[in-house]
């Protein structure tokens, strides 16, 4: 068991997301930064999509009531195990009774804490991810609060806990935040934008506003001009879609995004790059780069290859 001594700013249980129910209006939810979730799980010895904790901006403080094997990835929140620096992109044993504390992230936005065996909460529609807007999944469908008790699931493999280990440097992504470049596949409604509007979108810096959350990131910068109106007949939305409402300010849809929307979409941020925005915060700069589909698919292949490389290095990780 893990006792939540303090939850931090916004900490939820997330896994790879709730798949297969968008036709019924159910968003995926799931980790905002899927690479960090997968890396943390694989380091901990779990399948890449297992349930872990996603902490936002400022991490919490947790006491282990049993010996556990813990992995940390994503934004560095200055983790300390019993007061000693615990590192990041690393896994280590935590003794029963030990406290693991986090502070604010100096840069980046989201950190992932995985434990061998996963965070054991009931699966709802096939996923343990928290979707707070409908009160579904995780711990009571909500963010963690002080005093919550988290159960640790059964370890995928028996045997003694490994010693401390770190992700090989080449598999650790560069520090997040500050300024990001997001590759975008044009469409599905690029034709609704004026050609100078499209130029503006791909050549201007945008800033992350304070209206950013698990549902979407609203950006501000030079207005992206439509040819005519900004509204379309409501159609389907998925994470990565860049909606541009009438004010010309792009909104990038994220993990919790609604399944349908009525604004024209100028493009879709490629899957491999969405984590970069998930690690951005208010004031960070965003540049959009037009990208051919081949490159987007290649980036996805590289991401999968990285998971395979981590698994090869730490073969106790599950499938």
């Amino acid at each position, binding site marked *: 068991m893990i006792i939540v001594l303090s939850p931090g700013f916004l900490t939820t249980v997330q896994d790879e997301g709730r*798949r*297969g*129910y*968008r*036709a*019924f*209006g*159910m*968003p995926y939810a799931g980790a905002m930064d899927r690479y960090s979730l997968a890396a943390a799980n694989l380091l901990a010895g779990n399948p890449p999509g297992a349930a872990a904790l996603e902490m936002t901006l400022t991490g919490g403080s947790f006491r282990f009531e049993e010996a556990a094997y813990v992995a940390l990835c994503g934004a560095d929140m200055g983790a300390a195990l019993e007061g000693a620096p615990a590192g990041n992109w690393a896994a280590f044993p935590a003794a029963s009774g030990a406290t693991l504390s986090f502070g604010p992230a100096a840069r980046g936005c989201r950190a992932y804490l995985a434990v061998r065996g996963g965070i054991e909460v009931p699966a*709802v*529609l096939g996923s343990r991810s928290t979707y707070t*807007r*409908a009160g*579904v999944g995780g711990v009571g469908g909500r963010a963690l609060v002080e005093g919550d008790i988290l159960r640790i699931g059964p370890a995928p493999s028996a045997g003694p806990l490994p010693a401390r280990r770190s992700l090989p440097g080449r598999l650790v992504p560069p520090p997040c935040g500050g300024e990001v470049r997001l590759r975008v*596949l*044009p*469409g*599905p*409604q690029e034709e609704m934008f004026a050609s100078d509007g499209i130029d503006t979108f791909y050549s201007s810096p945008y800033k992350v506003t304070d209206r950013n959350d698990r549902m979407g990131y609203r950006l501000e910068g030079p207005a992206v001009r439509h040819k005519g109106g900004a509204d379309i*007949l*409501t*159609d*389907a*939305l*998925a994470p*990565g*879609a860049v909606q541009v409402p009438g004010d010309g300010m792009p909104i990038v849809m994220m993990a919790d995004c*609604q*399944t*349908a*929307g009525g604004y024209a*979409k100028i493009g*879709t*941020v*490629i*899957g491999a790059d969405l984590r970069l925005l998930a690690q951005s915060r208010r004031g960070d700069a965003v540049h959009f780069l037009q990208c051919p*589909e081949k490159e*987007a*698919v290649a980036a*996805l*292949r590289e991401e*999968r290859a990285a998971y395979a490389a981590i698994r090869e290095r730490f073969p106790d990780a599950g499938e």
Partner: protein
Amino acid sequence: MDTVRMLVAGEQGLIVEFGNAIDPVVNARVLRLARAMAARGLEGVLETVPTYRSLLVLFDPLVLPRERLASEVEGLLAAPAAVEAPGAGGNTVELPVLYGGEFGPDLAFVAQHNGLSPEEVISFHSSPAYLVYMIGFTPGFPYLGGMSSRLATPRLPSPRVKVPPGSVGIAGNQTGVYPLESPGGWRLIGRTPLRLFDVDAERPFLLAPGDLVRFRPVDEEEYWAYLQVEEIRAFERRGR
């Protein structure tokens, strides 16, 4: 076929668009493709999301490249299909509704706005079979088509902070039911005791795209009886 467009929605999304209107015939083509895709069971198709006039196909391009998916879709579209009446593929679901009173605080306004009596509003609202064009943007919310234009009423100038689940409302020429407690600007004319979305239920989503919905006016006694049954079911599920 002639009007079908295939659009790119990221490297993992293909939109098959059949038109640009709220039209039961267009929607029937969307749902027919969704069913055909499900029956085909292509490896690499993750899920499909039907909307008014298009189907979003989410796929894994490392398993199923876009070109192959697109040609599979073309094959399914070319296959002869029996002409189906809109709603033919779905169920008809009856939603009991207690109209007016505290559950339908805007019934009088909707009546007055349209020069009708409250009884006429109830009668116009509960006579058609509404087509569920799509479900979204939140879990279980049905986009219904078929409301009488005589009931069209603008949204509230300022949305309510909390609309209770089950609330039946009108916004412009649309009618709908709130599955979750949420803020909302629809004019509320009644409430159904049935749960449109309940993760613990055997059928978590009461409605599916392509279903037909009928509203049946009930009195308070019947409303509370339904609600009691729903609560007993929920209690039993929690106990399991």
